[in-house]
């Protein structure tokens, strides 16, 4: 029997993997991909909850799915702009290593 906990633990695992990617990779593009992974995991959790909170009879209100819809749209926009910035950074500093942009240090 697949309970909602299964889904949520799965979602958590993928989220954690994405987290590890953010923390441990040095290529800025890879970091952004890891962020996408995290967003994706969150979407999964949202849809799982949607199914979980559904009533027994009648139609299922798809609010969770609508939220996922929005999340995907926003993620797309954000990725576009973020990649442009990464590219500009590459043009300027000739590196995509995230450790090389530590200018905002004390």
């Amino acid at each position, binding site marked *: *029997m*697949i*309970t*909602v*906990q*299964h*889904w*949520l*633990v*799965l979602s*958590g*695992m*993928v989220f*954690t*993997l*994405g*987290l*590890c*990617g953010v923390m*441990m*990779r*040095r290529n800025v*593009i*890879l970091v952004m*991909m*890891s962020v*996408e*992974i995290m967003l*994706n995991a969150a*979407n*999964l959790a949202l*849809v799982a909850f*949607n*199914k*979980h909170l*559904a*009533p027994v*009879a009648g*139609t*299922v209100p*798809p*609010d969770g*799915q*609508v939220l996922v*819809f*929005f999340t*995907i*749209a926003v*993620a*797309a*926009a954000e*990725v*576009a*702009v973020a*990649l*442009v910035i*990464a*590219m*500009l950074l590459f043009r300027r500093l000739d590196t*995509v290593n995230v450790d090389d942009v530590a200018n905002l240090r004390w």
Partner: protein
Amino acid sequence: MEALVFWIAAAAMVAFTLLTIAARNPVYSACFMILSFAATAALFVLLDAYLIAAVEVLVYAGAIMVLFLFVIMLVNLRESEHEGLRLNPLMVLAAGTFLALMSRAVKDLGPAVQETPNTLVGTPGLLADTLFSRYVVPFEAVSGLLLAAILGTVVLARRKEDA
């Protein structure tokens, strides 16, 4: 039957994600990520979210990952500059702790997922009903957001010479 699909798809998703973050070559990472999204789409179908599954493939795997691939190609790293995952124990510990806490949090969440009758749930029609009635304002806002993102991208990516 469903449980089987779940386990296979779940395993695939986790495996591919792991490979994404661990691969040396960024192009390999991108490819693994696409596969990961495919698995996710399968999982969405399992959850009766048909439109979302389709959108996942179309937008995420189709558009976003293409964008990523473009940029990776643009950067054009040489083989020598490929570095992979460097395991930092502190970070692994933190992530592990986080996962443990999360799991602990969702431990007692109530009865199992209901088995719904085979009505078509996450269909475009149903989604559209909700989207354009209760969520019409966020809908319009998101369209504005997309416009802003497009403009921003175009402006930012210009070189000084093309005025």
